[in-house]
């Protein structure tokens, strides 16, 4: 169970977030929507523990995985190693399978810089999915992909969540994605930003 309580987050004197609290149960998925620059990535960096400078309290899981808004791969290691290095107990075959699932298996031996940006984003997805995360954090994971690939990735994410049941929180700009994946949709708004609407998924009772 992930518990997020953020009283206040500011950069210098500019307050970005205020009074955001919610919980995510294992197997539950939360989508965060909101205009560009509102504070979505900031919220994720608090949840993931990257940025410890805020007032509030967050309980995290032990095994976490993250997909950043940018691929954030190690440019000096091969695509395959990029998967293996963060999951030391993962077998080589499993890593290759993870790459195959996002459609870049044949690029496994290349350096990230030799991949297209969309391919790099998919490697980042594969990296996050390859472990069995208890908490999965994704920042616009399906942006910058063509519609067919994006659909594949969505399906893959659904499958992963069904399989391993992590607590998932992800940021998106596409309401359709949010509605398809999430149990809860939060919309950030205001200044400082807070949750302005919180709705359960349509197809839920």
């Amino acid at each position, binding site marked *: 169970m992930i518990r997020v309580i953020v009283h206040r987050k500011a950069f210098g004197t500019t307050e970005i977030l205020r009074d955001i609290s919610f919980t995510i149960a294992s197997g539950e998925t939360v989508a965060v929507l909101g205009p560009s620059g509102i504070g979505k990535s900031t919220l994720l*960096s608090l949840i*993931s*523990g*990257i940025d410890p400078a805020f007032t509030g309290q967050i309980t995290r899981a*032990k*095994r*976490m*995985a*993250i997909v*950043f808004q*940018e691929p*954030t791969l*190690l*440019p*000096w*290691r091969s695509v395959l*190693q990029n998967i293996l*290095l*963060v*999951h*030391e107990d993962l077998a080589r075959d499993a890593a290759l399978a993870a790459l195959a699932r996002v459609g870049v298996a044949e690029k496994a031996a*290349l*350096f990230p*810089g*030799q991949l297209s940006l969309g391919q790099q984003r998919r490697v980042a997805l594969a*990296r996050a999915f390859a*472990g069995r995360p208890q908490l999965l*954090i994704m920042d616009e994971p399906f942006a910058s992909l063509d519609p067919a690939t994006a659909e594949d990735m969505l399906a893959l994410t659904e499958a992963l969540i069904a399989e391993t049941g992590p607590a998932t929180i992800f940021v998106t700009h596409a309401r359709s994605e949010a509605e398809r994946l999430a149990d809860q949709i939060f919309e950030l708004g205001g200044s400082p930003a807070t949750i302005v609407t919180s709705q359960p998924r349509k197809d839920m009772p």
Partner: protein
Amino acid sequence: MKWLPVSPVTIPLLSLLSLLLLWVAAAELTADPEILPMPHALARPFWRELSSGALPYHLAHTGLRVLWAFALAMTIGTALGLIMGSYPAVDRWLDPWLVVFLNLPALVLIVLCYLWIGLNETAAIVAVTLNKIPNVTTILREGVRARDPNLRAMAQVFGMRRLTYLRHVLIPQLAPFIGAAARSGIAVIWKIVLVVEFLGRSNGVGFQIHLYFQLFNVALVLVYSLSFIAVMLLVEWLLLQPVERHVRRWRTS
């Protein structure tokens, strides 16, 4: 820029040749073999030192000292640089020490080492190492400070192990700094070894250079200097550059 398929050793050799021509011209202008002898005038002294075994003997001693001091200074200096670059709190404490040791004259450190440890090999190597560590630390610290915070964040969230982080995330990022420290490092070390040797050792290239300098025997000073340089050129070509090419592959592919 490439008109003809040239072998990779052609240009370095041509380059050295042009340096040789420059030397000939300078010697011609100086017109005093006591100040700058012609290159060919070194052949006989070189051969004499080589066949008498003196040159290999002193070269080996110096080489060993350089190697030891290099390994020690790079290891300790890099470790210190990593720590000081990563933890500003530690840095605030150690930074004044770094400045002091960086600017402590080699002579002072060397003499203190000889007097404390004794006129022996250990003292010589410790003295050189102590002289060089601050240099490596300074360069590496800059590198660590310039590291990419996003990769750090990634490693942190995924719970990457410390050693893996060091080896696969931090060190590769620092490669240019390590390269700079290593290359300028061997040079500085060798310059200090020269001083160490003439102050208190009984062999080594530095000892010989100083000896022949006292006798104003420029030819032999040059023979010993150039022999060491030749060794360094070989190290550069056979070791440093291949390693560097391997490490830099991801940039060029």
